[in-house]
């Protein structure tokens, strides 16, 4: 039988606030275990939560960027379950009245454009970290708990089950990641865990309207694993259905090294969260003017930015697509562009040298040493002929490493292009003298010899001679002999 795959995502995004959602502990990564902890996030008896205003602001901004309605009345609820990484045996979350709902993202795949619905976005707290003594959770003899992450603010973004292929899911996640990154509310980096995706996947016979039974798969920490898990789950569920079995509604975990999923718990357990309104937190009421103030603070979103780069800057669609995929890249591009007019040259350098270095060295774009003004200065030096394109690449590498100014690098290493005719004439004299055979060949009509002689001069000048000037002067010299 032919099956259609139905996929929805639950994406957890860690918000980039300075402090935790309900207490004033810092959210910084690193640090000794259990040192970013206070009575509140440790869940000591008697402690009470107080909502970080920035969390609300960020959640609303994310909602606006994802075309959501913002709830005027919203509240927190307790999600009750026992787990050692949870300090209170409940997670403060939002149940029936989330802060945002009914949004969407427009994606584009080979099959064309498609709108993916966002069901809701809610605010909640992260749990602590379990360190398993042993390789995996299933083989471990015991675990250690570090609560530094307990209480770090998250938003959970729930999509509609609108996706039908791994390609659509990856495109959805890419767009979502870019939009969230643009809003500035999160780094949205899957590898660092600041963006985490759970996939809900079910199959139904083509043509059937009702959804099949779904499995929820957790623990996906890269776009690659999302793609792999979708293929794995499709195969697993097809096998079950084809052999006359039934898919069970359950939560499964992805084992990246083995390339397969394992059952974590069945629905009966996971569905009994006994949600009820959090009595320790009063409701949140959001006024229209506050929403509008936040809307005004939002930067241009990737789609609009892309259109503007194509229409105003005259960039090819391909270039605009690559640069707008990352907010940091767009910011870099924009900053260079304010100092330097030729957009295409900027995009060539960004897509070529810059991204090559960034990818090779695994550096974060917002941790670049090279500054946009320096990049602009470098391009201007090439344009004015002060350095050649080839030298420019060398200078760029140095700038990338050190963050030094291109002018300083050129001066210090003596890389200035030599266009001074007197200096060049001396070099030409020398080369002509030491290569009489080539001069003869040229005279005899073998124009190839000219190239050789130019090469010799370039070599002698360590690449700094201006090739155009040399060409003109050399021809003049040879013709006069």
């Amino acid at each position: 039988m032919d099956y259609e795959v139905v996929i929805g995502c639950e994406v957890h995004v860690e918000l980039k606030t300075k402090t935790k959602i309900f207490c004033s502990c810092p959210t910084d990564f690193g640090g000794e275990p259990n040192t970013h902890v206070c009575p509140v996030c440790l869940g000591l008896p008697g402690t009470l939560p107080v909502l970080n205003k920035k969390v609300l602001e960020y959640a609303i901004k994310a909602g606006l960027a994802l075309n959501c309605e913002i709830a005027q009345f919203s509240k927190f609820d307790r999600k009750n379950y026992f787990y050692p990484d949870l300090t209170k045996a409940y997670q403060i979350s939002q149940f029936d009245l989330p802060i945002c709902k009914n949004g969407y993202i427009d994606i584009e795949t080979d099959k064309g454009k498609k709108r993916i619905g966002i069901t809701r976005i809610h605010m909640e707290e992260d749990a602590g970290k379990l360190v398993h003594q042993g390789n995996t959770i299933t083989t471990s003899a015991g675990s250690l708990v570090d609560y530094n992450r307990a209480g770090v603010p998250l938003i959970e973004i729930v999509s509609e089950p609108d996706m039908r292929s791994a390609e659509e899911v990856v495109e959805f996640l890419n767009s979502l990641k870019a939009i969230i990154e643009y809003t500035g509310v999160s780094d949205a980096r899957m590898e660092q865990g600041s963006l985490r995706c759970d996939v809900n996947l079910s199959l139904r016979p083509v043509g059937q309207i009702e959804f099949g039974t779904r499995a929820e798969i957790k623990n996906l920490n890269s776009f690659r694993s999302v793609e792999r898990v979708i293929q794995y789950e499709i195969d697993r569920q097809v096998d079950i259905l084809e052999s006359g079995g039934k898919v069970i509604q359950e939560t499964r975990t992805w084992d990246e090294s083995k390339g397969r999923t394992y059952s974590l718990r069945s629905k009966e357990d996971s569905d009994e969260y006994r949600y009820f309104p959090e009595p320790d937190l009063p409701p949140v009421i959001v006024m229209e003017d506050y929403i509008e103030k936040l809307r005004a603070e939002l930067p241009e979103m990737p789609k609009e930015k892309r259109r503007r780069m194509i229409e105003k800057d005259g960039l090819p669609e391909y270039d605009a697509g690559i640069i707008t995929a990352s907010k940091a890249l767009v910011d870099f591009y924009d900053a260079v562009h304010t100092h330097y007019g030729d957009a295409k040259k900027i995009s060539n350098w960004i897509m070529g040298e810059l991204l090559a270095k960034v990818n090779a060295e695994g550096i974060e774009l917002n941790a670049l040493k090279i500054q946009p003004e320096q990049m602009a200065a470098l391009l201007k030096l090439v344009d004015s002929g002060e350095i050649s394109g080839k030298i420019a690449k060398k200078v760029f590498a140095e700038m990338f490493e050190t963050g030094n100014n291109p002018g300083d690098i050129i001066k210090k290493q003596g890389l200035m292009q030599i266009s001074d005719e007197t200096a060049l004439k001396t070099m030409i004299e020398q080369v002509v003298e030491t290569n009489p055979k080539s001069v003869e060949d040229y005279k005899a009509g073998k124009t190839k010899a000219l190239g050789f002689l130019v090469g010799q001069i370039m070599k002698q000048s360590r690449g700094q001679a201006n090739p155009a000037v040399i060409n003109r002067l050399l021809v003049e010299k040879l013709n006069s002999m």
Partner: protein
Amino acid sequence: MISREVVETVAKLSRLYLEEDEIVLYAQQLSQILDTIEELRQIDTDNVEPLAHVMPVENVFREDMAGECFRQEKVLANTTEQMDGMFQVPKIV
């Protein structure tokens, strides 16, 4: 009447081991209490809002400013089950 199965399920959800006599006792007592609670069904509450917060307080926030944390020793002060600055628990599954 609450069955022993329900008592067992609820005890499991509550993470409580119960002895046989406790299961019997709680089944009986919870039934008795719930019978009294059944009285609530007599009242028409169709047009009544649930009252989760008794005082009209809303929008209580703190600014996103870092405060002091505990030292690690203080975090771990009430347990002996610790290792490498973390709380130690037996295996999870």
